[in-house]
């Protein structure tokens, strides 16, 4: 299969499936379920095929696809994959497939649900594979519409509030990104490569051959702030995280899985693909702020999770806490003020690798945690932590799987959550020991809320809450999802190299490019300063 076809197929196969489903009679519920499962499974297969064709030693973009789109505006249909996007593409395929299995629990308006579900997958894949800024932006916003409806129609009691809040926050981020996008477009003269993310990154590091303009330090700072706010909303980082608990709690289980498993990663991916390489000076300028925000998110999210009585809300806040590590890992870029050189750039590279790993690990563990909450919610129709207890005896397999996934989220050594956190915390030591200690102490809080939750839900003598008679052992369909996720959590925890091998060359290249870019911009700053004197 040619790369052009493969990449486009990964993006548009779900849409094609949605189109076919739209012709079916709305009463054929099983047809929708199975059809969606088949489409997502084939898409996942395609992403694995993409992995098999991927060359590990090549740091840059592979399988580049380029076609005209709107020529008057120099907008192109550019796709490609590198070590940074590949793991996330595969993760998206996997989580979407598992969420499709979890979607059996949807009990109204099936046709609309499954069509929107597939459109959502198109949007997510598109964001990860797009290499044209405009295309990236379009997919970014396209994702918004299905998500709004999926939360708003199939959600819980406060679904309308949650849906509009999600829409509003993301739209604010989108508008800021749009302005930043136009800034890059005009600063590079509006030529054929002005939306090309790869070429723009080269402009920033001064190695571009087609674009001769330089991005001024001030412009880089402005653009970075605009982009960062947009991506931080999605990540989500303190203080723009408030949409997340609402959206998660109200969304139906499979959508929560996708939200936690994939959508939050878009924020981190946006920073690493767009904000960082395009504005290295801005990134260095804001490094402390990034790490500080990350640390606050970790601690704040953990304390908030401790205070929750709603099981799903607890998991939602744990996401805020865990995504803080991503932000720290990306931000630990220590520059020696006197020389303008990067101190210990290998440590920073380790932080970026750790952040990337943390994204994948969180995608697996949090999708699993949300699914586990969903399984018990489908049976007892409540999520009050204080009314659970004793599930270990009634649902042993379920409780075992859940405990494993929650430990993965906790960051127990041997499970996937550990690797990302330890890499990030280690690299933070080089940046600022105090922040490293604070970040590391977040692990204690994490252990606190997760163990306490496990105790309240699964341990104890017997279940005394409502609907006790409805508690049935986990079904084979549900167990499949849990087993796959737990197995992956163990595999990645024991063999982290599977992921690091894929991404290390690309992240190393990113670090090199950004160092170059910073030096260039810094020399520009010092020349201006001298000229002023």
């Amino acid at each position, binding site marked *: 299969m040619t790369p052009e076809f493969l990449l486009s197929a990964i993006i548009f196969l779900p849409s094609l499936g949605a189109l076919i489903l739209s012709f079916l009679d709305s009463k054929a519920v099983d047809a929708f379920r199975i059809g969606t499962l088949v489409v997502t499974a084939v898409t996942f297969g395609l992403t694995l095929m993409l992995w098999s064709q991927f060359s590990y030693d090549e740091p840059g973009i592979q399988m580049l696809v380029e076609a005209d789109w*709107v020529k008057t505006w120099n907008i192109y249909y550019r796709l490609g994959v590198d070590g940074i996007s590949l793991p996330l593409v595969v993760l998206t395929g996997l989580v979407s497939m598992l969420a499709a299995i979890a979607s059996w629990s949807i009990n109204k308006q099936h046709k609309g649900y499954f069509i929107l579900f597939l459109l959502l997958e198109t949007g997510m894949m598109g964001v990860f594979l797009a290499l044209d800024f405009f295309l990236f932006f*379009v997919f970014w916003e*396209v994702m918004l519409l299905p998500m709004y409806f999926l939360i708003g129609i199939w959600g819980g009691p406060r679904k309308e509030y949650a849906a509009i809040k999600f*829409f509003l926050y993301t739209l*604010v981020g989108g508008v800021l990104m749009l302005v930043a996008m136009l800034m890059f*477009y*005009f600063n590079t003269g509006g030529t054929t490569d002005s939306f090309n993310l790869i070429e723009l990154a080269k402009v920033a590091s001064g190695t571009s051959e087609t674009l001769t303009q330089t991005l001024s330090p001030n412009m880089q700072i402005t653009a970075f702030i605009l982009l960062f706010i947009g991506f931080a909303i999605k990540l989500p980082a303190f203080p723009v995280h408030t949409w997340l608990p609402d959206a998660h709690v109200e969304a139906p289980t499979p959508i929560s899985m996708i939200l936690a498993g994939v959508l939050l990663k878009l924020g981190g991916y946006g920073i690493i693909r767009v904000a960082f390489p395009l504005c290295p000076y801005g990134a260095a300028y804001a490094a402390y702020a990034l790490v500080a925000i990350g640390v606050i998110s970790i601690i704040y999210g953990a304390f908030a999770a401790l205070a929750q009585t709603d099981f799903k809300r607890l998991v939602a806040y744990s996401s805020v806490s865990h995504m803080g590590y991503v932000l720290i890992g990306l931000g630990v870029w220590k520059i020696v003020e006197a020389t303008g050189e990067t101190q210990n750039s290998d440590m920073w590279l380790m932080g970026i690798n750790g952040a990337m790993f943390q994204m994948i690990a969180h995608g697996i563990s949090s999708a699993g945690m949300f699914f586990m909450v969903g399984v018990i919610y489908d049976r007892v129709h409540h999520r009050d932590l204080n009314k659970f207890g004793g599930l270990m005896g009634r649902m042993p397999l379920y409780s075992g799987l859940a405990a494993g996934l929650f430990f993965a989220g906790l960051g127990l050594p041997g499970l996937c959550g550990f690797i990302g956190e330890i890499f990030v915390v280690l690299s933070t030591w080089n940046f600022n020991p105090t922040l490293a200690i604070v970040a590391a102490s977040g692990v204690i809080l994490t252990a606190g809320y997760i163990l306490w939750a496990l105790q309240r839900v699964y341990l104890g003598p017997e279940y005394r809450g409502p609907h006790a008679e409805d508690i049935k052992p986990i079904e084979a369909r549900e167990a499949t999802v849990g087993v796959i996720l737990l197995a992956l959590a163990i595999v990645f925890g024991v063999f982290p190299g599977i992921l690091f091998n894929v991404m290390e060359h690309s992240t190393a290249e990113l670090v090199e490019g950004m160092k170059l870019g910073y030096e260039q911009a810094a020399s520009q700053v010092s020349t201006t300063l001298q000229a002023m004197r």
Partner: protein
Amino acid sequence: MFEQLIQDLAGDNGSLYTGLKYFSAELWLSGTIVVMLLLRLFSVDRWIPTFAVALAGSAIALWGLFGQFTELMTANTDVSIAFFGDMLRQDLFSVFFRMFLSLFLILTIALTVLTGIPDNEDAPDFYALLFGATVGMMMMASANNLLMLFLGVEMASVPSYVMVGFLKGRKPSSEAALKYVVYGAGAAGVMLYGISLVTGVLGTGDMTLLASRLALVSDGVAGLGDPEVCVVALGIMMVLAGLAFKLSLVPFHFWCPDAFEGASAEVAGFLSVASKAGAFALLVRFCLGLSGVEATAELMTAFGVALGAVAIVTATFGNLAAYTQNNLKRLLSYSTIAHAGYMLMAVAAMMVMQNSDQAAGLGQEINAAVGGLLYYLAVYMFMNLGAFAIIALVRNYTFDESIDSIRGLSSQSPALAVGMGVCVFSLIGIPPFGGFFAKLMVFAAVLKSAEIHWFMYVVLAFGGLNTVFSLFYYLKIVKAIFIEERPAEARAVTLPSMEGLYVVVLAVMVTLLGFFPAVTEGLSSIANAAGNAVLSVVGG
């Protein structure tokens, strides 16, 4: 001898026939009016429905304009010819607008056929008014003289007043019409006074000569200290006030919500798009006529910035006021006001760039600003008409135009629900719909002009903010349709296929304009070429 007389009156020997050729679309439409009225006189309209005649007439006009369009596109796109004694102007810009208007006329007639307003009795009257207004708007699009500016505006306005009050016997309708007339008359008077001031001082009504004459009058740099320049500036402001009335810009917007609420949704849809298009064409020509000469640059940059400020206020006011509305037509009328604000941002950006000392190097960007405006209008035609059409179609079943009437519509009529969803999301400006692309082009122009004047950054910031503000009330519509349940006592909306098809066609156009390469690229390059054409005569 008679021919000779006309030739002499027309002033430019031999070009009368070319002028008539350029004017043929307007003549066709006027002819159709006469035919429609005559057919009723002889009771032929019992056998040949009036809408068929109307459709045929407007289709022929569109076809004729398409001929002129291809001629201009194949020959020289930036040619601009004044005809009828320099009263009107034929260029790609004018042809673009006239094609736009006649296409919109066809779509409106099709909608009225589907909704059954007007009935058979009134059809000839209604279509005569509709055609008359369209001819007026077409003249607005090609006006080259301040006199024609006034005539065009009036010719478009007078039939509009009657159309707003067309639902006879309904009190709100008559009230709306009266309000519209009073405001319109006031605005026309102010505008006429402004025109007399401008022509009085500058000695010409020819819009392309205004800037150079102003430079002559002011000898040196035109500043407000010079009493003559001051009078002209006052005149310009008065003319702009008249145009602002047509565009429903704040603070000349008061008529708009009332008129739209009182009028039928079909008329409101027509007025919201068509009269705006004509007025924007005029505004662009008038603004460009005043620009491009060094002496007036400073003054006109100030006007451009002022337009930007008006755009901010208009967009913000429209979006905030829409939030509390429960009547769909009223809500959309405020959204119309807000969109006029967005579009005005493009004009402001054009003015600021055109009057900077770097204007020569910015040709392409100025072009793109005008092109963005035209693209916006084209997308706006489909998305706004779509929204009004759905209100009209639902009204025919529920006899209600409040937001409650569409609650849970998705369960009863998916086609209308999805169509409304597409139109609303496009109005917000979310890809992959056309509204996003249009907004992008406008914002890009504003950002570019911000390099010249810092105030345009403020305009851009408010443009972005307003996109967020507008989300609240647009989502109110979406929420009502898709998320809420249809009340048990609500009247059922079942749809014959034609109405669904009409909405689907509009929704598909809105979507195609958002991402389909051939359509977006085609339209945006045509829009840019049209911008180029109107720019070719700047500075006399």
